[in-house]
């Protein structure tokens, strides 16, 4: 095993896959010699050169459309949108074009691309640089959505996403880029659509994504000392969703909380809660709880941002309300 940061794990996944397939390329603003706005691409440009690690203009529709056009003509594109907030610009290319190309043309061409983007706040970047928009993409048939929380998960899932012949929205988290974790020395992949039990427990299932996995784990470790046993379930992929693992967990614990950083209303918490209520109704001893950001844009100063975004206090309080 070796220790890598989340961003190094992303870089290593891309490096390994790019070494295997000369038609995989990365395109985005500042991914070239500058090394990436979050320092993810690093030295990839010096290894792979101009055409495989391509600096793009500030033209998100152009970048994503280019990724599509290249991916239906023999290449595999990795498009980088450094702040998920900017993904609103190429929504037509993602949702009307990429998501629908295979279907609309009767299966004639698949779209083997990955759009890598970094969501999330807690970095005091204010309203337009902090959002989590994963819920929008689960609503469009034809897109897979992956949301890894650790260096181990991000490397294994990104390799799979790159090899997948379908379009994948790959949602990283800005705050997690510096996080260290253990990953195997040897090559490995993680399949899409498989959840991970990050911590086993018996009293309540906390289904959490991305950075919230770590907040949930902190709370779980703290509550262990109070003899409260929290199971932390990390879906890792939202489309396709591993319903089985989630339902099995709720069957064991009888209580479910879903926590995501995105605003509560319309977040993935609602979707997962509805699935549990529908298919796991007899397992439940309490109502399903959801935790998400409060109903306001994300303000800049820490005192206000930390109020709006979910906190460990929120998670602990909700767990205790249920028990």
């Amino acid at each position, binding site marked *: 095993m070796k220790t890598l940061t989340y961003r190094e794990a992303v870089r290593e996944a891309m490096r390994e896959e790019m070494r295997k397939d000369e038609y995989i390329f990365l395109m985005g603003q500042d991914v070239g010699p500058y090394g990436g706005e979050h320092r993810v691409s690093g030295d990839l440009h010096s290894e792979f050169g101009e055409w495989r690690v391509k600096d793009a203009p500030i033209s998100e529709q152009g970048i994503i*459309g280019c990724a599509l056009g290249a991916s239906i003509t023999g290449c595999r594109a990795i498009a980088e949108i450094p702040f998920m907030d900017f993904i609103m610009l190429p929504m037509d290319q993602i949702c009307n074009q990429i998501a629908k190309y295979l279907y609309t043309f009767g299966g004639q061409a698949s779209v083997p691309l990955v759009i890598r983007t970094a969501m999330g706040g807690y970095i005091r970047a204010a309203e337009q640089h902090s959002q989590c928009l994963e819920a929008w993409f689960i609503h469009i048939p034809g897109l897979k959505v992956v949301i890894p929380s650790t260096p181990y998960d991000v490397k294994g899932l990104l390799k799979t996403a790159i090899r997948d012949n379908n379009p994948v929205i790959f949602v990283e988290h800005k705050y997690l880029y510096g996080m260290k974790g253990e990953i195997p020395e040897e090559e490995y992949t993680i399949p899409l659509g498989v959840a991970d039990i990050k911590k086993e427990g018996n009293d309540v299932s906390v289904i959490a994504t991305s950075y919230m996995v770590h907040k949930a784990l902190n709370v779980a470790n703290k509550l262990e000392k109070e003899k409260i046993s929290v199971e932390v379930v990390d879906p890792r992929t939202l489309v396709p969703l591993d319903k089985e693992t989630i339902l099995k967990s709720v069957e064991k614990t009888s209580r479910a909380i879903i926590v995501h950083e995105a605003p509560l209303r319309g977040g993935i918490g609602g979707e997962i809660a509805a699935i549990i209520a529908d298919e796991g109704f007899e397992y439940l001893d309490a109502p399903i709880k959801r935790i998400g950001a409060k109903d306001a844009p994300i303000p800049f100063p820490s005192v206000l941002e930390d109020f709006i975004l979910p906190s460990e206090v929120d998670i602990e309080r909700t767990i205790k309300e249920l028990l």
Partner: protein
Amino acid sequence: MNNIKLNKELILSLYETMLKIRLFEKTQERVFKTEQEGFTHVYTGEEAIATGVCANLNKDDYITSTHRGHGHMVAKGGNMKKMMAELYGRLTGYCKGKSGSLHIADFSIGVLGANGIVGAGIPIATGAGYSIKLRGTSQVVACFFGDGAVTQGTFHEGVNMAAAWDLPVIYVIENNLYMVGTKTERVCKVCKNYAVKAQGYGMPGEDIDGNDVIEVYTATKKAVERARNRKGPTLLNCMTYRHSTHFVGDLDVRDKQEIEYWKAKDPIKRIEEKMLKEKIITKDKIKSYRNEIQGMVDEAVEFARKSPVPKTGVALEDVFVE
């Protein structure tokens, strides 16, 4: 515009393609009203552009197409039976009947899809150009879009990227003066001579009589040579006019005199007159071409009529691939 002297065989072949498009579309206009669902946008009047451009392309060159895409498909070598079956929504259509008139595609001959979002094909064509450069082949891309699409942000982004990176893409504006029912000049100061915009991106551009198939052919030949020699993209602004309304069945709000003016410049009429004058063809031969091609189109209609309707399970296919 210095037109190169084209040989007789080439002119006849250009004529035949335009005729195929015209008769396919005229037939489509007729059968659509009583036998098809949804909407259709026909290419009648604009045949010289698809024909003149695609005559310069090989089978493995790419095109991106639009909602008005039947002409592009025919010119690129599309199969009329599979096309008509698609318009009828049948399983034997190009897209298993799932998309109809709006989204004709044949990836095996480089037709990368007809797009229903105005301008969306432009960055996709840029991407196909990027792929060609990355893979190191000598393919080229022709990107079709209308005068209305030039006001989309995707035009600016897609064209700029191609020019910045010298990608092998020929951007072809099918300038028929109108968006849906409104003249583009009401919303755009420079729209009759779009070629000047190319300068702004650092690439060559030409304003062309889009109803002169030889002029379109000649200008495209130059642009394709540029692209294959890795010299970069070109913008071709082809002036034309659609005989039909935006979609078949729409209200025609255009000035009657304007319509007559442009019908008099019909590209097929013009090439027939030229060929007759230069004794490349006879009136009888024209008649026999028309009969033969109408026969092909009629066969395609019969094929479509007899083809099976897709079962509901087909609606759940092709969301993802294995």
